[in-house]
């Protein structure tokens, strides 16, 4: 164990974050120094919080410096706790009372058109993320966090799960690969994450290892709620095992493809046309549908190109995907608009559903529209289209009455 712990960010561009230096001393009491641009209106609040945390961990002699750029309480608390735990070994956790709405649960087949990635160690992007109304917000512990920041990011993500307002978005976390990812779960599962993204999944075993740990934690904390899994397939091996992965556990809700790593694995370049990954994408969609889960496409990385994104979404939808990732809030609406069914689709679906309802009322075994017989899968697809249209605001929920 070291003597000094340093956690957080503080430089010219930092916002809504702070950097904490913690030094454990043997005498002299507590020396807390706060440098903050919001000191005149939050200085006392920050000081009180710092005292509370130090006292919670039983620290009587220490020097604590907080260089703050407008961090909110749960971020300051995460930074202080991380800095302390770099010096002191303890199982205790300092938790602020969680927001009540952050105890809600989600369903396996909830819409997952858009999920916005948020770097797990960058609080400034978190506070307003939910107001852009993505279906899910992913607190990312994996690629978006530098290796030296992995430890402290866990505290930010844990506190965000409890205290960040997600404005109705599903609370998702992308854990790290392998052993580190399994350890991440201790910071996440007790705090009501709805869905865990598991990167670089290559076999059913990979996913089961994660799920076993989740089950252990749920037992330990006596938690009953569902935690959904979204494995991310990012390698040739993963693609070949897609179907087995999709069925690895009963709580797999969806399966995503990560094309940056996949194309790297193939030793090829990712192109706009995407021919190099066509097989993989077909495979993911087919495996997901076969296993009864959602297929989710990779992110579109040019955040300035909304036309390109729209086209990408239409292709993705055409291949059978049910959603895709995004890395910028402005992408969300484009994704929703283009995943939503088109007007002709909706009109056709309406006719089919009406015909089906009439047939059911009359007790007919066969549904027909004009002279054409309608098969059961077609009816089901039409019903899905209607649900989708309602969910994306393209159709009123009471359309049948009008």
């Amino acid at each position, binding site marked *: 164990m070291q003597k000094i712990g340093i956690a957080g960010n503080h430089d010219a561009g930092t916002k809504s974050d702070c950097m904490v230096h913690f030094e454990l001393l043997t005498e002299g009491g507590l020396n807390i120094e706060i440098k903050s641009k919001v000191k*005149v*209106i939050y200085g006392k609040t920050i000081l009180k919080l710092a005292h509370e945390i130090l006292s919670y961990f039983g620290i009587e002699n220490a020097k604590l410096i907080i260089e703050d750029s407008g*961090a909110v309480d749960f971020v300051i608390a995460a930074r202080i706790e991380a800095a302390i735990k770099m010096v002191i070994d303890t199982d205790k956790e300092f938790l602020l009372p969680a927001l009540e709405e952050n105890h809600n649960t989600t369903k396996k087949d909830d819409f997952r058109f858009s999920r916005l990635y948020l770097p797990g160690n960058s609080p400034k992007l978190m506070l307003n993320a939910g107001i852009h109304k993505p279906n899910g917000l992913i607190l990312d512990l994996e690629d978006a966090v530098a290796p030296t920041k992995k430890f402290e990011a866990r505290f930010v993500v844990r506190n965000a799960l409890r205290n960040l307002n997600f404005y109705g978005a599903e609370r998702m976390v992308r854990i790290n690969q392998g052993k580190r990812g399994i350890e991440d779960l201790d910071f996440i599962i007790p705090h009501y994450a709805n869905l865990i993204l598991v990167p670089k999944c290559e076999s059913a075993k990979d996913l089961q290892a994660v799920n076993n740990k989740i089950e252990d934690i749920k037992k330990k904390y006596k938690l009953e709620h569902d935690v959904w899994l979204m494995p991310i397939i990012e390698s040739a091996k993963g693609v070949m095992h897609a179907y087995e992965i999709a069925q690895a556990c009963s709580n797999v809700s969806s399966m995503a493809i990560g094309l940056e790593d996949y194309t790297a694995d193939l030793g090829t370049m990712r192109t706009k046309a995407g021919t190099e990954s066509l097989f993989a994408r077909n495979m993911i969609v087919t495996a997901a549908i076969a296993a009864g889960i959602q297929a989710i496409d990779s992110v579109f990385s040019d955040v300035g190109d909304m036309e390109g994104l729209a086209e990408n979404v239409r292709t993705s939808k055409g291949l059978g995907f049910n959603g895709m990732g995004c890395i910028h809030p*402005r992408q969300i609406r484009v994704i929703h608009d283009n995943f939503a069914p088109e007007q002709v689709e909706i009109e056709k679906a309406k006719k089919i559903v009406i015909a089906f309802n009439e047939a059911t009322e009359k007790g007919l075994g066969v549904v027909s529209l004009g002279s054409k017989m309608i098969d059961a899968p077609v009816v089901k697809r039409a019903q899905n289209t209607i649900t989708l249209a309602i969910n994306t605001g393209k159709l009123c929920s009471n359309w049948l009455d009008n």
Partner: protein
Amino acid sequence: MKKYDKLVTNAAGRIVPTIINGEEHIPFKGVGKHRPTGRRYGPKLASCADYPDDGNKEVESLKVALQKAGLKDGMTISTHHHFRNGDLIANQIFDIAHELGIKELRWYPSASFPCQEGLIKYLEDGTINRIEGSMNGPLGKFTSEGGMKGLSILRSHGGRYQAIQDGEVKIDIAVIAAPTADFFGNANGVNGDAACGLLGFALGDSQYAERVIVVTDNLVPFPCVPWQINGNYVDYVVKVDKVGLPERIISGTTEITKSPDRLLIAELTAEFCEKAGLIYDGFSYQAGAGGTALSIGNYFGDILRKNNWKARFIRAGSNQYPVELLEEGLVEYILDGQTFDLEGVRSMRENPNHLDTSPFTSYNYHSKGNFAQLVDIVVLGATEVDVNFNANVVTHSDGYLLHGIGGWQNCLAAKTTIMPIPLFRDRIPVIRDEVTTLCAPGEMIDVIVTERGIAINPLRQDLIEKTKGMGLPIKTIQELKEEAEAICGVPEKIELSDEIVSVIKWVDGTVIDSVRKVIL
């Protein structure tokens, strides 16, 4: 002499001095309550006989011009901010004054900018007694910390004109930096290497100052056309190598925002205006510089295009974005108060429908109406708004004076005033129980649009009715305040010194609030 004396509580409940720098001032009485009496102030009569027969008023340097103009202790010197952060002349004037050992000058700029930070040393050594104008950046910090010898006064652009017209401020020497001029003193801002747009802020000064100096780097043979400044008011003309840096009129705030949060606010503002029926064929609006305001203009353009409508006019601060709307034919006229980029300058030079205005036409209180009143929608920012819709635009929540008033107070006269603002900035909630500094009474502000909801002033029942059931996130201002506090925490009350360092004038010349010294 005491900086200020005789404190009273004005009609807005604010404690303000009635004696400022030895002169009497009237406390704020309420919106539209003050009626000035008497006649307009005028400078001494001039006679052609005292000026060169050949009309050539050129002298060899700014120093000579200032000396000939009789520069002496205690005078009032005015300058203007049409070069914004690219002004080169104000610093030179006070360098010369310092060199000549002149003291106790009153600087009366239409606005100050960080490029004038160098004047702090003259405020310290007594060359300059005080600034009556905006105090931005470093000058604002210096003022807030109590460094200024006299008491500074902040006025709006319209209020500055009003103070000139009614003689509250008698300008001894006005120095006008002009991108193009002739030897007679006719001058404009649209031609020359340093073209920066228009010289409207200097118009009143040219008419009312005792002495007027035009400084240019592009001296053309008579006549200089157009003459935005009329040479018949001018005493001396000075040619310099470089009069200003027009590339610096572009500030960081004149780009469309890329921030997703601000774009969301802009979209919501445009959606609100559309659903409230504020946008129609022939409507008018003013959206200033600033990333959010500019993107709102773009969304307005989309709405006009979609409906095949035209806006009759935009009041601006123009830059490339309103110019695009004008050239596309979505807007018939731009009535421009200052240009914010070189596209704006070009358009003003080339397009007869892009007109230059002045604080007299747009904002003045002592005129028989003004243009600002005729605008349908004005979009303005604020540093703070309180639960009674009162707004602050000059101080930050830490008490520091960091912005000028500009045309902000004058624009409030528009039919609907909308403030698109984030609910909090770096943990600092924007909606407060009470504003730190009162710059606008709440009755003037109609709508607050934030990324988390829209609050409509209860005085605007018409807007409340029209937007009911339209799917807009309408909340009360109290609800918005509480939402911010749930995220940021409840802010502590700031402690400021009792000492006053500046006063804020309302558009009619009365004192609406005082700015207190910060505690270091």
